[in-house]
């Protein structure tokens, strides 16, 4: 069946260090991937997306890498700050069927002072 999963449920990172959050997806037909950040008590907030014709996309302090060969997605956060503490979700959008997001299970990022 379809599934999007994360390797690490909780990631603790020292403030100022770089963070890497990983995600494995199973549907090779997916052509759009998104990372969302969810702070405590709030709704998910879009961070960055990438289409399947790209391997890498950069935003402000964030980079998403896509490896279609092994169906792996990662989110890199440079110089992690306390405000980055949140749960991060990856999601995939399959090309076939009704357009919908399939979310992964989430990784909690804790930034240590």
């Amino acid at each position, binding site marked *: 069946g379809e599934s999007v999963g994360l390797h690490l449920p909780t990631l603790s990172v020292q403030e100022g260090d770089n963070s890497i959050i990983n995600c494995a997806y199973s549907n090779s037909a997916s*052509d*759009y991937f*998104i990372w*969302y950040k*969810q702070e405590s*008590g*709030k*709704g*998910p*907030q*879009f961070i960055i*997306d990438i*289409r399947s014709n790209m391997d890498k996309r950069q935003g402000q302090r964030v980079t998403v890498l896509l490896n279609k060969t092994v169906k792996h997605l990662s989110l890199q956060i440079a110089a992690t700050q306390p405000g980055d503490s949140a*749960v991060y*979700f990856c999601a995939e*959008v399959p*090309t076939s069927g*009704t*357009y*919908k*997001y*399939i*979310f992964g*299970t*989430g990784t909690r990022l804790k930034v240590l002072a």
Partner: protein
Amino acid sequence: DTAVSQTPKYLVTQMGNDKSIKCEQNLGHDTMYWYKQDSKKFLKIMFSYNNKELIINETVPNRFSPKSPDKAHLNLHINSLELGDSAVYFCASSQGIRQGGDEQFFGPGTRLTVL
């Protein structure tokens, strides 16, 4: 200025009751969604409406009935509430449903607790 708003933010009710959650978006989007987030933070699509037409109806008990009076509103009515319905429900909207991606904007969530 709130893009996607939901009411109420918290809802505590007894088993067997009927309740509704309301959602409104002021982004001019055509598509709206309801998601359920369980206690383990797993986020799953329940319903989606595009231009007031139901386009996604996942395996959700028929006690859940979405209603879209217009493009800017998508309400969720739940009949005969059960303990397992306790969760956080998120509304979201997107410009459309283009394959290849349309960013979804999420509301703040409604925490439903069934006693």
